[in-house]
């Protein structure tokens, strides 16, 4: 069922929702009822040139940040500070376009990033001003930082950040821009390099071996190189084959491991019912665990999870059959 339905079935269909919106608009979400009328009247007066008389300061957006205050923004640190709320209408009106054009870009850094055309001309992008405002966020957002910015900005802090992330010549990359799906990017990248592709992978590539299990309807494959010891391999196999031993699927990453299931499977795998065996280069079936991990991945061709009773014939010592795989690490 869609959220729309529930919303509607609660008695408010789309039109009445809009009414609610209208009604709610009269209530100030910051609880300042005396400002609410200002808010609603401003709604209608948006385009009104009279509003331009509201001072620029009153229209400034401010978000005080640790260490990012400019002299121009001394008092207006917190947008939601009580003092501020009284003077400010709830949607700051821009001064007229002309005003905007003539105002210097850099002074406006504090004023909610209003840009004049001079900004555009200088190719000082909005986001770099923002970077200045939110130094911590620079790392996270990884917005583009163009070369020209460094000399324009007053803050030493930003130039440091700039220098660390902008390449000397070409434009830097922005995360997720242009908005092309990674799938498409990767595919095209492969297209370009197609002629250079080598089929055989060097030793550092993945090493897939088939893993079969008695009673399972199909094989799995594991990349031995993605593990560094027997413990990891064992854990991965446990996860993979839980389905068959317990007759139900394992959990997804969403709710984390089901501890009860894990223990059960461990018991099953670790000597009670099943053992892990492998076929080596000579075609012999051996019990996993004799050799060091490095040697093992060199010789292992196939893996098989056998029932304990079947593995006895492999001639290993009895105590190996009951030893938990994980302890072989």
């Amino acid at each position, binding site marked *: 069922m869609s*959220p729309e339905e529930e919303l509607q079935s609660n008695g408010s269909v789309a039109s009445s929702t809009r009414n609610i919106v209208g009604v709610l608009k009269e209530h100030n979400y910051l609880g300042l009822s005396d400002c609410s009328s200002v808010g609603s009247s401003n709604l209608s007066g948006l385009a009104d040139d009279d509003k331009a008389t509201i001072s620029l300061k009153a229209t400034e957006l401010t978000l005080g940040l640790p260490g990012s205050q400019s002299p121009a923004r001394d008092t207006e640190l917190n947008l*939601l500070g009580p003092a501020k709320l009284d003077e400010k209408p709830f949607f700051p009106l821009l001064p007229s376009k002309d005003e905007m054009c003539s105002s210097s870009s850099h002074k406006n850094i504090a004023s909610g990033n209003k840009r004049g055309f001079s900004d555009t*001309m200088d190719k000082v992008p909005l986001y770099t001003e923002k970077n200045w405002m939110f130094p911590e966020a620079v790392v*996270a957002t990884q917005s583009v930082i163009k070369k020209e910015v460094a000399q324009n900005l007053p803050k030493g802090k930003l130039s440091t950040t700039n220098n660390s992330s902008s390449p000397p010549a070409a434009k830097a990359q922005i995360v*997720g*821009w242009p908005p092309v799906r990674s*799938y498409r990017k990767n595919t095209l990248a492969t297209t370009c390099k197609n002629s250079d592709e080598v089929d055989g992978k060097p030793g550092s590539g993945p090493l897939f071996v088939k893993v079969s299990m008695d009673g399972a309807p199909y094989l799995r494959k594991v990349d031995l190189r993605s593990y560094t010891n027997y413990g990891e391999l064992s854990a991965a196999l446990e996860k993979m084959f839980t389905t068959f031993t317990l007759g139900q699927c394992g959990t997804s990453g*969403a709710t984390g491991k089901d501890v009860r299931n894990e223990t059960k499977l461990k018991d099953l795998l670790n000597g009670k019912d099943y053992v892990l065996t492998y076929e080596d280069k000579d075609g012999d079936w051996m019990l996993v665990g004799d050799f060091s991990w490095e040697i093992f991945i060199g010789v292992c061709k196939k893996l098989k999870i056998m029932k304990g009773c079947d593995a006895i014939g492999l001639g290993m010592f009895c105590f190996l059959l009951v030893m938990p795989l994980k302890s072989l690490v």
Partner: protein
Amino acid sequence: MDLRLPSKVLEHILSFVDSNEDRNSVSLVCKSWFETERRTRKRVIVRNCYAVTPEAVARRFPEMRSLTLKGKPHFADYNLVPDGWGGYAWPWIEAMAAKCPSLEELRLKRMVVTDECLEKIAASFKDFKVLVLTSCEGFSTDGLAAIAVACSNLRELELRECIVEDLGGDWLSYFPETLTSLVSLDFSCLDSEVKLSDLERLVSRSPNLKSLKLNRAVSLDALGSLLRLAPQLVELGTGSFSDKLDQEAVSKLSQAFSEMKELKSLSGLWDVLPEYIPLLYSVCPGLTSLNLSYATVQMPDLVELLTRCSNLQKLWVMDLIEDKGLQVVASSCKELRELRVFPSGAEGLNDTNVAMTEQGLVSVSEGCPNLESVLYFCVQFTNAAMVTIARNRPNLKCFRLCVMEPFAPDHKTQKPLDEGFKAIAERCKDLQRLSVSGLLTDKAFEYIGTHGKKLRMLSIAFAGDSDLMLHHLLSGCESLNKLEIRDCPFGDTALLENAAKLETMRSLWMSSCCVSFGACKLLSQKMPKLNVEVIDEHPLETRPDSSPVERIYIYRTLAGPRLDMPEFVWTIQKNPEIGVSHLAIK
């Protein structure tokens, strides 16, 4: 007189009501209609998997046969959502397995699907028929094997642009010999080679096969034999189109193509060599859909192909087509409805084709009267072009313009692109989806707010000047359902002022904007029916209220706070004791 319809009669009537939108309306009429409707609904669509719990859905629609789910927000496609955010399919599959074992169809988009999920599907739904995964991840080819081996009535298995851990091509071999019901198979996003003989056998025993989309590893030679086995295909995605074939093989392939009388959709064509383009000529007149967006075909060859596609309705192509190529489209493809032009440059802007400008789109808007959906990546644009496009095509429903250079103004006048988008919003009265880009001031958003009354989805990047921008949109766009914004300079005020609007929308995404942590807390407090998620990979040690947040994702929900949030996602429920201190009500 009792005017109530007997429920059997009502059921019968409702069996003719197919659209979910209509069914939603039906369910509002009265309790008995609600009951009858819910018991008879077969196809359920949940567009935000966290808006409602799987159990609630299963309880309400016990006769569900088809479930469609969407997980991550759209911007996840562009790596703006960190890994591990959520969107897990498991809870849904588990719930459906328990309550709706007759489920036959599952369509998931942008969700995390694990091998366990696929195994669960295979084990739980006896009559499972359709699995379509779009932009999903988290599973391997082993999971596909599970589906293949167990679903004996499988009709559709489609993997669209998924990220799959590819452990080899064996999975295909697990389709049993008894499986003859296959209608659609799409494994185009996989890397490994599948065994050709298995594929051929599968195709030959599937008389109902209508759609086959191969992966790149399927050679051109193999394609020939497959086409001969399935000339009835309506949709074909080729594999690699680049092997060197001898003359005989080429003519055989040409023959195979000409036998395909039903073919309507063609895609794939990876690495296509120009000399093989003529092989496609025979199918061109029948094509309604052509996806060349992975084919690095240059303009002259493209032109040859497109002049023959007189019935084309959907064209996806790279900017290699250039303005000239688009002119040909404008004159040859009169039935065109949807055009998508993708950038060919792999990284950054420097590689982008400069022979494609705004003129290309203008030509198509002039020549193609049915054009209603546009996605256009271009280095720069002009207001005049957009005004012309709007004038030519007031029937546009979807206009997504990506001017790839952030803040690029009109390259002729150096002005912001406000006027252009104004024209689009004003003239295209049925516009439902809009993506804006380039240099834009708050004015642009005033226009969009004023005119975009049918606008449902809006995507914005690197635009606007202040809070006004957001305010215009939230207060003006009545039908607004999804809003996604990145790197724009508005902040708390507009968000808080228009908080009520958020409950009428499916979701709002904002990243790298100027929203403070305090505002998020306040919003969460005031709007309990919304999940306000602050997604911060690098949070400050102590989060002062004034600190900006990296990303917010706000969505309405009946399910309350979700239980699978990773560390980097904060909601107020995580720290309920952090009150609204000095921000509070005066």
